């Protein structure tokens, strides 16, 4: 999505790092996303000021739905360039999607200063103000967005909803109707219009708008059915009202169950941590396994489980979990490092070397990675390469005696 924008601004990047970045783009265009992530990370290591590499990483993670990793990359980009509009825009969107309005607010305020004529930014800022109860500023920003782009859907719908909630029906209804007309395929417009009509007691039209919202993708949103129940109730249709409430309850229950699962998973992780502190690794692994079942897509959990099984010398399980973590988050050097250690532990030296080399590419400043790589290369009889790896480890961590010992003990070529 944002990659084409990045290509244009690579001229200031050192040639070698630029080449690496271009290679990442090529990987991306070939849809080899895992490799692209690794290459972009390499480029970022090559040129610490290369914001575009972090943006590209964020872009891939965002496309995969991995908001946590995307956000981490964007925040990294903002550390390099705090006024980078792309990063500000994407990071604030991620915060907004997670309901973290407080975190989004300063980013949006900066973004408004950077891009004062962007209607969507004013609309987003307005939405944050509205969510925190600051109606005055919300209205101001929505109106600014509409000044800049009179047909901007989010601003029309947002301002309409804001006015409707404040009891200003005369101001709200034209905006909400216009929003629903402008984007007839967006369920949100019909939903907000239907809700406002309910408030006005215009239940027949409300019911029609809400049915439309449900058909257009709102059927996963409990609130659509709650409003529909209100409309049916207003129309005196008890059976239909009951059915809509039942649907609302079912969807709400699903949401709650998911949230509860998340809470339980967090509790299991805490319990596992306690077991770990007490040295009860097997019990800790059992708790982490429960947490993993609850949150199967959580790479951090998979990594922790893998680490535990590695410590328990369960290399098969450790490999399975860390590979799963890598498939979710391929640009995390730590996962590749652990996989390297697992493969080394199970004497799969070629695989160990490949993983450790990837880890070293992603994070060229971690001494333990080079030390482990040196050990694998030694076992493979690659004496010169092993010494080079040990030397790198010692250079990165000159005060660590074990790295020095390994270097001193390494067979000379």
């Amino acid at each position, binding site marked *: 999505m944002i990659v084409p924008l990045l290509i244009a601004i690579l001229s200031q990047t050192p040639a070698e790092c630029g080449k690496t970045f271009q290679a990442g783009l090529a990987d991306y265009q070939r849809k080899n996303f895992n490799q692209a992530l690794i290459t972009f990370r390499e480029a970022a290591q090559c040129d610490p000021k290369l914001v575009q590499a972090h943006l590209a990483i964020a872009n891939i993670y965002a496309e995969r739905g991995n908001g946590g990793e995307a956000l981490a990359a964007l925040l990294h980009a903002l550390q390099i360039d705090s006024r980078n509009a792309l990063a500000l825009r994407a990071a604030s969107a991620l915060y907004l999607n997670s309901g973290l309005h407080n975190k989004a607010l300063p980013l949006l305020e900066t973004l408004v200063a950077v891009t004062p004529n962007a209607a969507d930014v004013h609309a987003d800022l307005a939405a944050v103000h509205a969510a925190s109860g600051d109606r005055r500023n919300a209205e101001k920003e929505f109106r600014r967005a509409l000044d800049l782009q009179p047909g901007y859907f989010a601003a029309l719908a947002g301002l309409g909803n804001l006015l409707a*909630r404040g009891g200003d029906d005369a101001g709200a209804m034209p905006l909400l109707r216009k929003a629903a007309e402008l984007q007839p395929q967006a369920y949100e417009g019909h939903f907000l219009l239907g809700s406002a009509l309910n408030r006005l007691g215009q239940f027949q039209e409300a019911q029609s708008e809400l049915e439309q919202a449900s058909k257009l993708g709102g059927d996963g949103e409990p609130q659509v059915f709650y*409003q529909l129940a*209100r409309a049916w109730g207003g129309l005196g249709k008890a059976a239909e009202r009951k059915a809509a409430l039942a649907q609302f309850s079912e969807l709400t229950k699903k949401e709650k169950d998911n949230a509860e699962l998340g809470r339980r998973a967090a509790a299991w992780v805490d319990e596992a941590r306690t077991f770990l502190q007490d040295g009860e690794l097997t019990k800790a692994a059992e708790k982490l396994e429960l947490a993993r079942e609850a949150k199967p897509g959580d790479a951090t959990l998979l990594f922790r489980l893998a680490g535990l099984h590695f410590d328990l010398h369960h290399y098969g399980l450790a490999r399975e979990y860390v590979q799963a973590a890598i498939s979710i988050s391929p640009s995390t050097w730590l996962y590749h490092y652990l996989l390297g250690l697992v493969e080394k532990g199970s004497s799969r030296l070629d695989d160990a070397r490949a993983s450790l080399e990837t880890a070293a590419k992603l994070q060229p400043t971690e001494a333990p990675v080079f030390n482990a790589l040196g050990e694998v290369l030694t076992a493979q009889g690659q004496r010169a390469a092993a010494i080079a790896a040990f030397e790198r480890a010692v250079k990165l961590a000159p005060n660590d005696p074990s790295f020095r010992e390994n270097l001193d003990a390494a067979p000379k070529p």
Partner: protein
Amino acid sequence: MKAAFLLALAASAASGPYFVDEAVKAGLKDIFVCGDEHQKNYIVETLGTGVAFLDFDNDGLLDIFAVTASKLEGFAGDAAPVNHLYRNKGDRTFEDVSKKAGLDRAGWGQGVCAGDIDNDGFVDLYVTYWGNDVMYRNRGDGTFEDVTPPNIGNRWGTGCAFLDYDHDGRLDLIVANYVDFDLRSTPRPDGPKPCQWKSEKVMCGPQGLKPGLNRLWHNDSASGQIRFTDVSKAAGIEKPGPHYGLSVTTFDYDRDGWSDIYVAVDSQASLLYRNRHDGTFEETALETGVALSEDGREQAGMGTAVADYDGDGWPDLVKTNFVDDVPNLYRNNRDGTFSETTVHSGLARSSQFLGWGVGFVDYDNDGWPDIFMVNGHVYPGVQTGEYRQRRILYRNSGEGKFADVSTDAGPAVMERTSARGLAIGDYDNDGRPDLLISNMNEHLSLLHNSLAGGKSLTLKLIGRKSNRSAIGAVARVTVGKRVVTSEVRSGSTFMSQSDFRLQFGLGRQTQADAVEIQWPGGALQRLGMLSAGQIVTIEEGKGVTARVAYTK
């Protein structure tokens, strides 16, 4: 008719200030404690405490009972704060009779509700605690005895209310329980796993903590022996499962003659228990439309109050909520459901208040119940919210709209405290409702009402076949072409108890043309004209047994 009625009052309604805080002058100087003043490490430090207007000695003057909590670090020696009973001396001052009455108990008190549990004509008390709740029987000689059921259990009681849910003439008891709270396992803001609110470290809860279970106690007292039996399970009270229950309000929302129960719930859907007339209840809040916000969102329900605000004869409901939200005004649709009218009533204009005690109070005696709310944040240290907030007085226009008239009402209403409990009652018997407020770690506020509004009539109902407190009795007063309806209730607002007497604003009318009482159990009693300006005692089956003119 309505417009003329209101226009006639407009001049007086706008001539503030008319609420003045007389607490200190009245001798109410004790500080009511709830945790640390500046830092709340645990949710138990945030709820504050309840207050009550009640006439414990039957001298016709409202006395005050106020609950205190404590501090987690405790107090040295006998310095621990205690609950206070203040006797009304009849000159707008009070004397502390807590010790003499046997009510000077320390502990982590929370709420209070009142009712005559043994029908001896003296009002008894129930005090909720984080710990063991306490039931007090009023001996009638100015002292109270502890008659707590032995199996009361160690819980975190919050709101409570007496009601006669099975029409046996004895008052039963509903108690909300908030959190099954364990101090040891709850994270602190300064600990390794703090909770956050708007990115600031705050105390944890209620979400993430184990919710409590509401309890229903059936009054099995006989032969002077007080006995209450826990019937929560059999009566269906437990069926919705654990909830973060706070305030309790009883009312007959479907006008079938049987008391129903509403529990405002924090961070979950609120509960409405419909009385099935067979000793059991069915939870109907979602179907009825009073469980959630008008968007279908769970809210942080705090205080509740009931009145017929639109004059259609059916009880409506108001509920306060957390900050960044608005209160709910639920209008009774007269078909067993409610519609939320918060926005169009004018109550959705401010979302910066964290509301607690709320009451319908016809402060100007125009015959339309107005709304009074007290507010205050739960996090004293945060940058993103005001811990001390002003109160709000909303005037009912009579046409479904409420206007914030707090500024006009006076500095006592605009004063910023972190308020919690609220009780309404006419403590000087001048025919104007006054307001009693508990504030976090401060003394009480006693807002005396001096507004020269409309005329009023006060009814004191005494049950004979029904419970003596007449809780659940509904009075309908005809004023010209209007019928004003009100119900006697225990508990309500926020963990507090208001005056049992029913005060009816008559506007410019000098009399109520007719009065009808529907006693619990369904018996109807009709009385003729009653003049304004007096407190009239009506006994079930007998009629008017006493009349006392208002004080000047």
